[in-house]
């Protein structure tokens, strides 16, 4: 029983991590007024690029760096169309998703072919923290995870600090609320938004790399399976705060973790209903949380000086 709890917690933390990483990046971009629907596609690109990088160099770290770099490039394209060209953010995001799907499938076929054997690549191994990982029940779950997991949870207070206590964080929040007021005090609204979008791209790339090299150990087509959208939902459910999205991600991740548990436990529930679980939880969460409190006033509205 205790083992069950531990392994469930461990699993939950692992499944929550990519959602959380992506959602933390989204907190910044959404607070600045940009809703990046294309996160799903960006994570997909990160997942593939990470694997390619890791396979080529034999180092998962390089893989992650490649993933982040390429993803940031695509998020720059997203930023260009939404901030400078002022096109509809949802449509640009959807275009990125469709494009990313095509890109990753194509590259996957070209680079890896259609062979069924999966090459061995360097992945994020678990790193047990001495002493702490020996704590009963939670030790194994919290302190025997891979590096990105630790980074993700450390990023939560860091993100809170940046958002609330730094100049750039203040600018970001202001720009998403009342861009005109910011303009009158001399803040460059467009530049600030670009910075936010690039950061969310950074995080999306890292999140995608974790899915392909931390949760699983290779790339399969469509492997992000909606996690990017769950990250978007996590931002709403978490009320646009870093701590909030952490809890939201843990709850959404629990859906996936429960799916594995229940499947293994052979309860007789058809596995498809378990697969539905995280998505159902997300819908319910969105409905509960949508009488917004923290949603930036200028969310998803392109800014023009005219």
């Amino acid at each position: 029983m205790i083992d069950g709890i531990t392994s469930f917690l461990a699993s939950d933390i692992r499944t929550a991590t990519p959602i959380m990483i992506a959602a933390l990046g989204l907190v910044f971009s959404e607070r600045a007024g940009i809703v990046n629907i294309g996160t799903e596609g960006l994570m997909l690109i990160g997942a593939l690029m990470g694997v390619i990088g890791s396979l080529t160099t034999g180092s998962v770290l390089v893989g992650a760096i490649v993933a982040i770099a390429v993803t940031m490039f695509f998020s720059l394209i997203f930023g260009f169309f939404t901030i400078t060209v002022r096109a509809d953010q949802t449509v640009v995001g959807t275009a990125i998703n469709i494009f990313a799907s095509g890109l990753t499938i194509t590259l996957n076929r070209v680079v890896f072919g259609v062979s069924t054997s999966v090459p061995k690549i360097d992945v994020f191994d678990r790193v047990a923290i001495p002493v702490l990982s020996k704590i009963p029940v939670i030790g194994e779950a919290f302190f025997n995870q891979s590096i990105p997991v630790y980074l993700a949870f450390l990023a939560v207070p860091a993100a809170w600090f940046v958002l609330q206590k730094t100049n750039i964080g203040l600018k970001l929040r202001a720009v998403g609320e009342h861009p005109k007021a910011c303009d009158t005090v001399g803040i460059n609204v467009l530049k600030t938004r670009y910075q936010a979008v690039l950061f969310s791209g950074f995080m999306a790339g890292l999140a995608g790399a974790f899915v392909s090299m931390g949760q699983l150990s290779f790339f399969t087509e469509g492997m992000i399976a909606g996690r990017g959208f769950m990250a978007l939902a996590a931002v709403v459910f978490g009320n646009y705060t870093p701590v909030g999205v952490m809890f939201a991600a843990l709850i959404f991740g629990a859906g996936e973790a429960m799916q594995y548990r229940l499947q293994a436990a052979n309860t007789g529930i058809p596995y498809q209903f378990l697969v539905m679980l995280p998505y159902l939880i997300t819908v319910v969460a969105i409905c509960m949380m949508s009488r917004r409190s923290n949603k930036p006033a200028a969310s998803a509205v392109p800014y023009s000086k005219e």
Partner: protein
Amino acid sequence: MAFLEMKHVTKRFKSVVANDDVSLSVEKGEVHALLGENGAGKSTLMNILYGMYDQSEGEIYFHGEKVHIKDTKQAIELGIGMVHQHFMLIPALTVIENVILGLKENNMVLDLNSAAEKFKEMAKKYNMEIDPWTRVENLSVGQQQRLEILKALYRNADLLILDEPTAVLTPQEVVGLFDMVRKLTSEGKTVIFISHKLAEIMEICDRCTVLRQGKVATTVAIKDVKNKEDLAILMVGKNVELVTRKKEATVGEEILRVENLCAVNQDKRPVLIDVSFSLLAGEILGICGVDGNGQSEMVKCITGLHKVKSGKYFIKSTDCTNETPKQVLKHKIAHIPEDRHRMGMIKSMNIEENLILMCYDQPPYSKHGILNWKWIDKHSEELCKTYNIKTPSIKEMAGNLSGGNQQKFVVGRELDRDPDLLIAVHPSRGLDIGATKYVQSRIVEERDKGTAVLLVSTELDELLELSDRILVMYGGKVMGIVDQKVATREYLGKLMAGITE
């Protein structure tokens, strides 16, 4: 040279001259009023000073030196601060965050504590205790306004421009504001006070420059002004003999009765206080007053777009209080809205699709839910002819028409419904002379046909020419109802500025 000199400033927007050879001279340490009606050019002039517009002609001298203010950042650096009518505060952020937003001196990691200390000290100096850690949305409107002033002072403003500051304040908050202004000037700061409220200008200002239709009417020292009435005359111009081609009104039954109507806005401030009047068929009741004194809220209440807090209104003896817009429309009301772009038309639809906006679900426009385009085509062509709407075709997109033509088709659409009650809000705003005269003559025609007309306007000339009776609103209240035959500009001007006998 004075502290601030604006010399021969002219500002043109395409064909409109907003400021025409305006010269303004402000001394250090004084409170200088900028007085004028809507559209006189006050805000435009100050926006030039604050760097939001470039002047078309003219020069600005500050501290005796010629300056070219290219953006607001530069204006702030020069020591000019402006408090707009619509606050540039961010409600979701705290007071101190708003104050230090965008400051060059900010470090990467914000030192909010020492900024808060500095802010608290400054606030105490002006007898204003504001908790720097509270969110701006939790402040009252008066507090927010004084925060805007403090924000400007924190950035070392020497010259403060206040744009209609008392428009959003309660009488008590006005007292607080004036105390603050006096303290500011005693410290050597200079204040430019844009307003149309004569009593306040008499109370707090040292000198006053009156603008009328883009030009300077005069500059006076307040102590030389005997009474507010003199200022009122200066603001609206001399009583000019107007030629009205109107027939005598033949009035009929009561179409609209408003009883003790009260309403509040979303900040729970009262915007309508005990408004009562009666409107008969075949007459034009002009609603007079400077924009923002409750006229638009009253119209919205009557048309079902704004909630009524207390009181009632009756259309043809039926109690319509708080009906939905759809229900209200059924009482044969036509409404020419004040903001035709937002409320009156759909820019990306063509003209005939706009023309059917109010009656698409009635025969012969449609039957059993299917639109009769053949009939609509024909009828739209007729409407365009009747109302003189100049357009290449009825399939032209509404947004492509000139302002005048847009208003004409809104007017045409509404009048075509053969209403019993016509509510026209600023119907000639933004129109050239030809379109204006056209719209006005149609309104008079309606009245001659027996329609009851409620005409809301800021143009005194228009009201004096067209109305049979004139109701003046100030601060959400009815100041008085005057018969057109005995109304004078002076009298109306006084009522508009809140002066009671």
